[in-house]
């Protein structure tokens, strides 16, 4: 018994990390598809469950610290598990249970050697994300961060025989490293010349406002590159479609949140001052990101690209919450800051579940039909009813509809806007309603996107080809998707319990909690500040809708004769109907493309009346490529061509360079 009681959560977490590493090497050695899918992936899910439990027990508990005698001499790894780490660890564990279970079924067709490698990278990826949350010095943090980037790079390029996949992987790796350099530099500023890179030193160091701002901007850039904040988002729509679906789910659901963790850790924990304009900057960037993501999601024709843009939108919403929390915290409105931060963390947790669910759902669609283009899908609700039901939960949740989980976090976020007390700047006060309007617009557009996503894939008739032999999902997929769907429902219906879990984190970050006021009228009602101002009870709402539906059904059954015939679709009496007359994904996105035309670089190929084989093609381009990335790329190429002139491939010229450098150095040093 003493052994059990003396186990700290951090020890359990380290145990799980070691266990995942073990599974990784086991996968590399075994290379047998059956063993890998039936044993290793479910075992990984078991580890995730233990991790989630440890994180749950650690939330609100004492801070655990450990030092591992690994790494370089005199540079041991410092580990620390406080409430912020524990919350994100909970997110990692809870969401990866579903993804690992699903993977057990999804990868059944992969060849053994390929799957062995994938299993290795997959579990390294999991372990490195857990280490990112645990790291308490910059050294370990960067090691874990890079391990995470590299393992996910190899996971993205699993199907590396496709050129597009290699290109997507390259862009991902490039932006990940540009970001990593910025993060490293922000750590460099924070340690302030002491040469001691532990987070404890950074916490105690005092930075001037200028250097604090430099740190914040570097961190926002570096972590923003990982999170996909506009204009650093370009890797997301490339990498997600290229990766196998469980990997997309993991990256979008969990890995993006490591960047959110980083921003929160640096801003609220490591830096001791905050400035109000940081909040405004984050808020503005978040709004741009959210609107940009959702508008582009609406015009996509590839289902995984659509979800990738939707992830950009959600990261934007999360960043809006962070911006609000910073602003309110600076002006000492800590109750509302806690509300905004709670909404942020709640949305991060929700997004892990909903986006995981949707990406896994696209995996099953891809598996059953071999098709990723929305324009060719349709009518999958008939051959795959179970998948259709589970994905419907995720789609409704991410569209922010009550009583599911996406709505709760949006509700909290809107309350933070509405309850915003008077801020001392009148421009700031003006910004609040405008920001609220933009956020509401983004979340309404999310509904549009999800109707398109779900309607085009699952409803109607197959647009091209027949999917009658498409098989419904197997038991492992059902378990994984079911777990995530259950999470979406429970997180939506019992928000007060979730907020009580988040409380220790907001206590740590802004020194105020929401739990006491949230639960003041019982767990049934969610009341952010006072019951008179706002309250919401998802459970009651859910029950009323259910009762209303059942009552209506019973009444109709009682009074109606119930005769029903089946016939062909009417469609206003038009006799000739084919499946190709339905809206395609492009058609469904057309109004958005028209309204927001200036945002897109639209190219259209329109047939003339004399074309023998009329062909129409419309394409919407991300203009940020043209205006930001391609110029940078061409400048880089020119510079390297200039530098290339120094290279002649003759050894005596290189020796001359060395000699000149030495002379120059001598002149300086003397």
């Amino acid at each position, binding site marked *: 018994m003493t052994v059990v009681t003396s186990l700290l959560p951090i020890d359990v977490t380290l145990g799980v990390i070691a266990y995942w590493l073990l599974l990784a090497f086991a996968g590399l050695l075994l290379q047998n598809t059956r063993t890998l899918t039936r044993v290793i992936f479910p075992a990984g899910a078991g580890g995730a469950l233990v991790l989630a439990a440890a994180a749950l027990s650690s939330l609100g508990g004492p801070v655990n610290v450990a030092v591992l005698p690994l790494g370089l001499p005199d540079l041991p790894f410092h580990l620390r598990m406080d409430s912020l780490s524990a919350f994100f660890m909970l997110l990692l564990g809870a969401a990866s249970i579903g993804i690992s279970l699903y993977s057990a079924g999804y990868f059944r067709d992969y060849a053994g050697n390929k799957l062995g490698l994938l299993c290795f990278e997959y579990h390294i990826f999991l372990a490195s994300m857990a280490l990112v949350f645990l790291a308490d010095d910059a050294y370990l943090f960067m090691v874990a961060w890079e391990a995470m980037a590299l393992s996910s790079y190899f996971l993205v390029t699993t199907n590396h025989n496709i050129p597009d996949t290699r290109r997507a992987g390259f862009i991902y790796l490039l932006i990940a490293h540009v970001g990593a350099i910025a993060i490293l530099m922000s750590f460099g500023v924070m340690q302030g010349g002491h040469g001691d890179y532990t987070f404890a030193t950074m916490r105690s160091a005092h930075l001037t406002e200028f250097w604090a701002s430099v740190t914040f901007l570097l961190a926002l850039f570096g972590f923003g590159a990982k999170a996909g904040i506009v204009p650093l988002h370009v890797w997301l729509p490339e990498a997600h479609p290229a990766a196998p679906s469980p990997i997309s789910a993991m990256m979008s659901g969990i890995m993006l949140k490591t960047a959110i963790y980083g921003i929160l850790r640096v801003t609220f924990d490591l830096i001791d001052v905050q400035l109000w304009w940081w909040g405004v900057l984050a808020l503005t960037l978040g709004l741009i990101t959210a609107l940009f993501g959702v508008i582009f999601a609406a015009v996509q024709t590839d289902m995984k690209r659509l979800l990738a843009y939707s992830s950009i939108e959600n990261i934007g919403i999360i960043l809006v919450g962070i911006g609000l929390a910073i602003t309110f915290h600076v002006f000492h409105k800590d109750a509302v800051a806690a509300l905004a931060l709670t909404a942020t963390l709640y949305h991060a947790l929700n997004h892990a579940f909903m986006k995981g669910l949707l990406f896994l759902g696209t995996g099953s669609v891809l598996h059953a039909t071999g098709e990723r283009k929305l324009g060719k899908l349709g009518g999958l609700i008939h051959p795959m009813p179970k998948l259709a039901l589970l994905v419907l939960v995720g789609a409704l949740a991410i569209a922010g509809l009550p009583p599911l989980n996406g709505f709760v976090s949006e509700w909290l976020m809107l309350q933070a806007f509405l309850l915003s007390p008077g801020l001392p700047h009148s421009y700031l006060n003006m910004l609040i309603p405008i920001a609220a309007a933009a956020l*509401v617009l983004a979340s309404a557009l999310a509904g549009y996107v999800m109707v398109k996503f779900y309607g085009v894939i699952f409803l109607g008739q197959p647009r091209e080809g027949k999917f009658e032999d498409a098989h419904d999902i197997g038991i492992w997929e059902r378990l994984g998707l079911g777990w995530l769907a259950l999470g979406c429902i429970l997180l939506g219906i019992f928000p007060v319990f979730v907020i009580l879990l988040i409380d220790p984190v907001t206590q740590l970050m802004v020194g105020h909690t929401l739990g006491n006021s949230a639960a003041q009228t019982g767990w049934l009602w969610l009341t952010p500040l006072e019951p008179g101002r706002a309250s919401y009870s998802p459970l009651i709402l859910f029950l009323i809708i259910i009762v209303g539906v059942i009552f209506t059904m019973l009444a109709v059954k009682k009074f109606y004769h119930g005769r029903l015939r089946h016939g062909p679709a009417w469609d206003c009496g038009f006799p000739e109907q084919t*499946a190709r007359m339905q809206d395609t994904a492009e058609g469904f996105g057309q109004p958005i493309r028209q309204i927001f035309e200036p945002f897109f670089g639209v190219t259209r190929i329109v047939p003339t009346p004399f074309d023998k084989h009329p062909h129409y093609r419309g394409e919407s381009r991300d203009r940020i490529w043209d205006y930001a990335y391609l110029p940078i790329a061409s400048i880089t190429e020119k510079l390297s061509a200039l530098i290339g002139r120094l290279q002649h491939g003759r050894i005596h010229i290189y020796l001359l360079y060395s000699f000149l450098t030495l002379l120059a150095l001598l002149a300086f040093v003397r």
Partner: protein
Amino acid sequence: MNISGIFLQLFQNTLVVLIAPLLVGWVNQCRAWLQNRTGPGILRPYLNLFKLFQKDAVLAHNASPLFRFHPYILFACMWLAASLVPVIATDLPLSPSVDVIVLVGIFALARVFISLAAMDIGTSFGTLGARREMLVGFLAEPALLMVFFTAAAISHSTSLSTIVETLAHKQFVLHPSLAFAAIAFIMVLLAENARIPVDNPSTHLELTMIHEAMILEYSARHLALIEWASALKLLAFSTIGIALFLPWGIAEAGNWGAIPLALVALFLKLVAAGAGLALLETVSAKMRIFRVPEFMGTAFLLAVLGLLVHFLHGS
């Protein structure tokens, strides 16, 4: 939560579901009078519902369970929405569970479901209607929310009951922010209820239809439920407008004597609102579908302006 409150809630639930078709009938009759027609009589919607409940339902071959299940969800959502608005008395027991943001969420839930059901059969008109409905919705929803936010900012609460109590008991103060909100709200009401100039409820024409295109494949009991739900939605929007902009005469918490008076006041306000709606519809022309985003964008901007005015002006 007391017994009288529950009784009142049940009373309101029954009342709204019964009088909703009457409001539609009244609007149609007013329109007919304004257009120099005799009109079908204000009881026509009841007869229509009765007729539809007599018919045999016809279901398209490839209808999925979602298609058959949707009318019940739609009806339940709209019924709930109409029952939530404090029209007679403010102390409704459901009020603490559902605030204005949730109310907008319920409308959004119904909209998403009706669009999905429209796409289910896979006909050209169904998907066209779904796309147009979502197009109208993605601008109408934030505009409606902004209208509510203006009212919420004035009363420091997002609870409908508190908003109505605050607005009803204030002295007659003209809030400039509420004036903006009222115009925006009327535009949203027209769009959300498929009224002219955004949509025309009485045609089946490819160029114009939105709502009708979505429900083409429904028949008999399913269609009856959808029609009834649309009537409930119109009633819900009318009562929301009354509650926000003309709240006087509503019964306070526990004041039973005021309820008959409140009922009379509600009746008169609905009669006036229905006539006003018919007048608006008669004097305006249906606009091209491509103009709808501009119309809705105007509504959204007006609503944002209202909120902005409140934040700057403080009233």
